[in-house]
């Protein structure tokens, strides 16, 4: 570790992994509820389990991003963090607020939670992914602003590299676009229109900048390729992301009451969204092939290559599958979306966080890389989780194609629930793939406790 203050990243990483486990457990509950509708009812109804599953995902990714930024920024700026104390304080505030929110979801009915938390003062709740009560939303804003203040001040007093500028751009964008979660017009069309400004412009806009920046950082460290070369790639990826992703928001505006030109704009621009992801794939492999040193942390390099490939497949290819308006006419809101969502989130954002943790955690624990035994376990977990998500995606895609056919395309369309019963086999297979994913995650956590001390490399 080059700077003492980088150590604040550690609790963030640990919390991220803990919440990740929670997300997967609720994923398994949900998957079972798809086929056994009353499983755990009325204790944990489907809508609550789904909310916990998606909210835990978002929160653990945010913990990962913050941890990654706290680790990376001092090293890039070549100076200590502006205030490590503030970073730790924000960690506890965010963790407690997040935990209380989840407890709130599970302990009381959602409507009661809304009443208790002052939703009538400013109505922001009840919208997918942005279900958090008002105090939690405000908490997120405070934590995000203090976090941004902290890392921006660090960059300002230190060296300003392209990688940290891109990261700052991504993180500031993240905070700014979250503000649209407070804007909740009564007109449903306008509501959805601006809801996507948070949701889409996060995952298909500014988060990609965070992804690119983290990937560039780890590639510089592990391959020893010239910074100039890496930065040039980063610029290209950022440009392509912004050109395609911003107006690409339009691919969510088909047939929800927005003007028809969005069908053209959305289709055209979002059709190009796979390109920056493909750029990242080529980038990762190219840099690793041109490496000038053999970094002892092979697991981190594997995650870097993995995120390059899986982000392209999940976000790029599976996104493109249903991004054109005439196709989306049939696939809107089916299991095709769920298939895309799973692989895209895992491939792009779960994996880039796991890459950052894989690279930084051994160093935070006082060694350049983990022991061979630990790395072998970590790589096993990589393959178990990645193969499991590929199968989850394939099964959901099959379920989605059948659903579209049975429910929407065929001459005698079936009602929703009848179609669901006919594709139950695929939901069962998805659930088993989910169990494999959980096993992979257990192996992953085990790797932190295996053979760490036997071979001190640093």
């Amino acid at each position: 570790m080059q700077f003492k203050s980088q150590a604040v990243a550690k609790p963030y990483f640990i919390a991220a992994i803990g919440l990740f486990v929670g997300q997967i457990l609720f994923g398994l509950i949900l998957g079972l509820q798809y086929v056994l509708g009353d499983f755990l009812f009325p204790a944990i109804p489907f809508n609550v389990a789904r909310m916990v599953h998606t909210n835990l995902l978002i929160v653990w990714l945010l913990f990962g991003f913050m941890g990654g930024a706290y680790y990376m920024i001092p090293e890039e700026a070549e100076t200590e963090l502006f205030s490590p104390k503030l970073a730790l304080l924000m960690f506890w505030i965010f963790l407690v607020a997040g935990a209380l929110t989840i407890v709130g979801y599970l302990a009381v009915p959602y409507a009661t939670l809304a009443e208790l938390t002052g939703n009538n003062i400013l109505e922001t709740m009840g919208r997918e992914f942005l279900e958090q009560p008002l105090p939690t939303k405000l908490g997120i804003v405070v934590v995000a602003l203090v976090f941004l203040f902290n890392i921006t001040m660090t960059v300002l007093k230190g060296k300003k590299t392209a990688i940290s500028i891109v990261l700052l751009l991504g993180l500031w964008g993240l905070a700014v676009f979250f503000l649209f979660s407070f804007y909740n017009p009564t007109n449903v069309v306008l509501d959805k229109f601006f809801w996507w400004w948070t949701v889409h412009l996060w995952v298909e806009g500014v988060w990609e900048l965070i992804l690119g920046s983290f990937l560039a950082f780890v590639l510089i460290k592990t391959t020893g390729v010239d910074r100039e070369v890496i930065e040039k790639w980063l610029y290209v990826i950022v440009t392509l992301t912004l050109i395609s992703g911003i107006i690409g928001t339009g691919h969510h505006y088909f047939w929800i009451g927005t003007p028809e030109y969005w069908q053209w704009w959305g289709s055209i621009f979002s059709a190009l969204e796979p390109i920056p992801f493909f750029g990242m794939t080529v980038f990762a492999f190219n840099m690793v092939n041109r490496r000038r040193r053999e970094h002892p942390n092979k697991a981190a390099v594997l995650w870097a290559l993995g995120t390059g490939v899986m982000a392209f497949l999940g976000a790029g290819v599976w996104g493109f599958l249903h991004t054109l308006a005439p196709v989306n006419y049939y696939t809107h809101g089916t299991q095709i979306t769920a298939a895309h969502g799973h692989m895209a989130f895992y491939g792009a954002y779960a994996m880039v966080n796991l890459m950052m943790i894989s690279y930084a955690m051994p160093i935070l624990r006082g060694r350049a890389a983990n022991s061979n035994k630990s790395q072998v376990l970590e790589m096993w977990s990589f393959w178990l989780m990645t193969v499991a998500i590929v199968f989850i995606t394939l099964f959901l895609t099959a379920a989605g194609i059948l659903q579209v056919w049975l429910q929407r395309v065929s001459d005698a369309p079936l009602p929703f629930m009848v179609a669901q019963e006919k594709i139950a086999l695929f939901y069962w297979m998805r659930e088993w793939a989910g169990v494999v994913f959980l096993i992979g995650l257990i192996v992953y956590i085990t790797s932190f406790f295996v053979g760490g001390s036997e071979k001190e490399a640093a």
Partner: protein
Amino acid sequence: MTTMMNSPSTPPTEAVASRRLPGDLAIWFFILAEMLVFAVFFATYAFARAKNVEMFNLYQQTLDRNLGALNTFLLITGSWFVVLAVQAAHHDNRPAISRNILLGWLCGGGFLVVKVIEYSAKFGAGISMSTNTFYMFYISLTFFHFMHVILGMVILTVLWLQSRNGAYGSHNAHGLESGAAYWHMVDLLWIVLFPLVYVMR
């Protein structure tokens, strides 16, 4: 990767000049990405038009081809001035660099004025992107291009300020060439767009 051949010993002969990429590699990636977006847009236009040729032909006649032609002339002239600026840099003729960039910028400004006149006539007649598919494409394509002219002029402004500080010459035309390449792209896109949307039947 692209810290271009700065070796001062290289003679600026035509043979060498034709083999090297003018400007920065990154700007070429950017240009390719931009052209790709427009290419997809043009292809979509062709696709939509093929499904409804009569409607497209009918509303195409409402466009002002003379103003379009004037704008084509302005952009080509603007590109010519920018070429002169780059050549002036290669010959170390410093005053000519900034003068020609300024003339190129003025051509861009002229384009914007003409375009605004054209738009105000159309919008004044109550035409919007929701009027029909032809106008959707006409407004979208020309508006995206309009924004690119503005971006090109911002880049020319930077080049002009830099050239006034004596930043460019025969051994350092890298930034100038990068900006010039972008400006030529703006011109090139219009040369495809104008016949496609205004003229072609």
